[in-house]
């Protein structure tokens, strides 16, 4: 399975590094890609033979890696979540937590809960549970997001927005 991991770009996220390490160790034949963020300790990660790692991939390259991935494992950041939902890409989330210094506050936890509620995508609160979910991931039985729902919602929002702008 080809997996893209995305840690986000603000603040270090060593728990995601751990997840990547674990998956790399237990599934040496899987090609893994990791956008680790500017503050990650890339040197330790770059010794993993089945991993392609960068602090930040160029936008175009990232798009390519994203579309090639069978599964995306991401922090609960809106950029990746939006892209995954829009493109029907299977994904798992590891929300960043404020108490571990991974973000300023716990809005990623809120996001993850809201996405789980609306779209049935599961999120994980600790490394072990996420690693288990990845190793046993079954793309065939994953919940499929309906792109039409998003499109319809968005069009309705657009109509309201344009009406509002017209009155300003």
């Amino acid at each position, binding site marked *: 399975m080809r997996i893209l991991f995305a840690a*986000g*770009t*603000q603040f270090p996220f060593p728990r995601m590094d751990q997840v990547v390490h674990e998956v790399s160790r237990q599934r040496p034949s899987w090609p893994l890609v990791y956008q680790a963020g500017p503050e990650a300790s890339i040197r330790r990660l770059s010794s993993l033979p089945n991993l392609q790692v960068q602090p*930040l991939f*160029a*936008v175009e390259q990232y798009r390519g890696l994203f579309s090639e991935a069978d599964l995306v494992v991401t922090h*609960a*950041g*809106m*950029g*990746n*979540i*939006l*892209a995954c*939902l829009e493109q029907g890409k299977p994904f798992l989330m590891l929300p960043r937590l404020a108490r571990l210094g991974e973000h*300023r506050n716990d*809005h*990623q936890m*809120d*996001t993850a*809960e*809201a996405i789980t509620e*609306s779209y049935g995508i599961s999120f994980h609160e600790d490394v072990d549970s996420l690693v288990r979910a990845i190793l046993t991931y079954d793309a065939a039985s994953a919940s499929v997001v309906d792109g039409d729902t*998003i499109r319809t*919602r*968005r*069009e*309705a*929002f*657009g109509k*309201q*927005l*344009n009406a*509002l*702008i017209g009155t*300003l």
Partner: protein
Amino acid sequence: MRVLLVASFGGHWVQLQRLAELLEVDEQIFASTADGHHGGASYYLDDFSVRELWRGVRQLPRAVRIVRRSQPDLVISTGAAPGLLVLFAGFLLGKKTLWVDSIANCRRLSLSGRAAKLFATRVLTQWPDLATGRVCYLGRLL
């Protein structure tokens, strides 16, 4: 109508682009952060957090310049702090301003969004439960 759209790179930027696709306006001009990493915007600021007020204040002249040069009728931001700063510059120059709080904030309006409430022409949340008084819900991107 000419609209200046501002967001920092990352999730805010992705939401700004989706929002821009929905707008029926004559011209769209983009401002963002992380120049050198993406070429999607015409103007750039340095990224900062709303808690690092001094870094923001230092860039206010730059934000004012962006608004002056782009001459928008309306400034829209989806966040975060750099978007708030340009929105504020728009307010100072007498432009209409619209804050669309990130869909990531589903339990509470972001700190930048709460600050935008103080001066923005309109403030939108993408979660119906968060709509109160000056904060409206008109729909969401997801």
